[in-house]
């Protein structure tokens, strides 16, 4: 997943906008979805996505292929998304707006499936809202994006054991949250 031909990267690094668009098309869904899940609103997710690709555009020439290109993009995505989230919290604009995602779904209309979807989104955002951004990032990369422990470790530049422990703590937090809700 997310493999891109070296020739396209080379052309993109030389300023070829058509090649850069191919890079964008290959990664935009990943970047947007991760940004959305960490920031929990689509406006911030759009801003983060644009920031990520402008960083890729400016730094592509200097990318020396010491790591896989996709790992580099994953890292920029998570760092930019977490920074945006922290800025939102500082500005007290930390808003949870799960309706935005429903509007973005193709062919969205009133239906039972959409209601269930909406309920799921509400539940998901409640759960993710209970986590710190670092734990949230690990959980999103693992559960939603399907990255392995190695890939997550490489993306976040942390040891695999740290990935493991963050996932454990995130899941413990979700369990406690779920039990607390059940008692209400």
């Amino acid at each position: 997943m997310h493999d891109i031909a070296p020739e396209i990267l080379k052309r993109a690094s030389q300023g070829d906008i058509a090649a850069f668009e191919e890079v964008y098309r290959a990664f935009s869904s990943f970047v947007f979805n991760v940004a959305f899940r960490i920031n929990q609103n689509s406006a911030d997710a759009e801003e983060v996505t644009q920031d990520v690709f402008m960083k890729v555009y400016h730094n592509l020439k200097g990318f020396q292929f010491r790591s896989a290109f996709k790992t580099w993009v994953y890292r920029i995505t998570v760092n930019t998304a977490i920074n945006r989230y922290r800025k939102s919290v500082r500005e007290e604009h930390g808003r949870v707006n799960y309706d935005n995602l429903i509007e973005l779904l193709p062919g969205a209309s009133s239906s039972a499936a959409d209601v269930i979807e909406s309920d799921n989104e509400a539940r998901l955002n409640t759960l993710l809202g209970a986590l710190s951004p670092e734990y949230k990032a690990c959980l999103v990369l693992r559960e939603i994006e399907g990255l392995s422990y190695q890939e997550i470790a490489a993306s976040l530049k942390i040891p695999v054991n740290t990935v493991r422990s963050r996932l454990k703590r995130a899941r413990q937090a979700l369990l406690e949250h779920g039990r607390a809700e059940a008692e209400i």
Partner: protein
Amino acid sequence: MNCKKIQDLLLSDYLDDEIGSSLRRRSQEHLDICEACRKLEQELQRVRIPLQKAPRVEAPARIWQNIRQQIAEERQREFRLSWENMKNWLEERIVIRRPVFALATVMAVLLIVFVLGRNMVFRPYDEARYAGEAFTSILDNQDDTIAANLETSIEKYFL
């Protein structure tokens, strides 16, 4: 295997399928006999459902349009900046001497025009005039000695 170890695995490697087959088998054997650990596993599977059902969407089209626009604006700014830098560089080196250079250039051009113009414009006119006069003279005098009417100043001098 004890419950603490199993629960550790349940919260991470077991749930994420990052576990080897031997360890998976031993964990499964423990879950078969331990109700507390089995309940924890079920609870964890329940809690992860919203995450697993989370839809993935395409990034809105306007994001790429914004990126393209931002790149185009940056390139225009870079071009304007490099043009300004070049102009400044030239002005720093030429502006003080410009009046002298301009005057020298104008004088040189005028001189060239004068010299070339004299040769190209006035000489042909003189030659045409002489030829015309000679022809008229021949017709008037009907003289065979044409040379007498075509004498040049040099011939006059020597003859």
